[in-house]
């Protein structure tokens, strides 16, 4: 069951990739990459249960924490035109 769920989530990532590539504006791309990060967290949790090592959940949590660093950097660049 976890295998099927993993495949479904991976297919969902494929759908989001379409928005990353097509996305008419840069904001669409940022949101799509953020969504991919969220799906990555779900995939990691699923892989943890697939391998019967639920401690992967902690790793998934840390991924969720570092997921939005790039988004914050992008927003700062967008608003101020520079990062420092």
């Amino acid at each position, binding site marked *: 069951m976890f*295998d099927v769920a*993993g*495949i479904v989530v*991976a*297919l969902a*990532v*494929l759908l989001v*990739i379409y928005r*990353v*590539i097509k*996305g008419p504006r*840069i904001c669409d*791309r*940022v949101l*799509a*990459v953020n969504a*991919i*990060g969220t799906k*990555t967290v779900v*995939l*990691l949790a699923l*892989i943890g249960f697939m*391998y019967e090592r639920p401690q*992967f959940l902690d*790793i998934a949590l*840390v*991924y969720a924490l*570092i*997921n939005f*660093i*790039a988004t914050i*950097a*992008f927003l700062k*660049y967008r608003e101020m*035109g*520079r*990062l*420092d």
Partner: protein
Amino acid sequence: MALDLILLIIIVICAFAAVQMRDLLSAALVLGACSLIMAVIWTRLNAVDVAFTEASVGAGITTVLMIAALSRTRRGEEGGEERDMGWVHDGAANKRFIFRHIAMLIVVLVTMGVLIYGTMDMPDFGDPDAPAHTHVARRYIEKSREETGVKNFVTAVLVSYRGYDTLGETTVIFTAGIAVVLLLRKQRR
């Protein structure tokens, strides 16, 4: 298996998209997505530490550094528009254009052939008789727990058996970090 296949296809799509994109900021974002998927593949291969490094360095810091570099330079690609218009109404220029493209195609095909030929005699994925699994791997699997006290083999190899190697890598990364800070800090006027 199907999951790995989908993830690898996504990586290939991301790589093509990053090369094709004219907007460098979008390309940096696509590379970040590529790194996240790569981290999932590392986790599938049970190399959690590598996956962690990939996610924090590849998806986190690299994207930030690319955006920082873009904020210091320009966002577009130089001469992006003219590059596509190779076909003009001039016989000699057209010949040069065709010749250049055919030459590039030959170079790419030859390189691809050499690379594929190089992978022909590699052992199958997960083959127990592969050279990588017949020498020290057995000792790592059997003894690493008692010799180093680390539960994960990959971690044990990285931080204990190859500790000096990792120390050298850390030195390189530290030096690179200092260089980046020097380049990115505010210029005094």
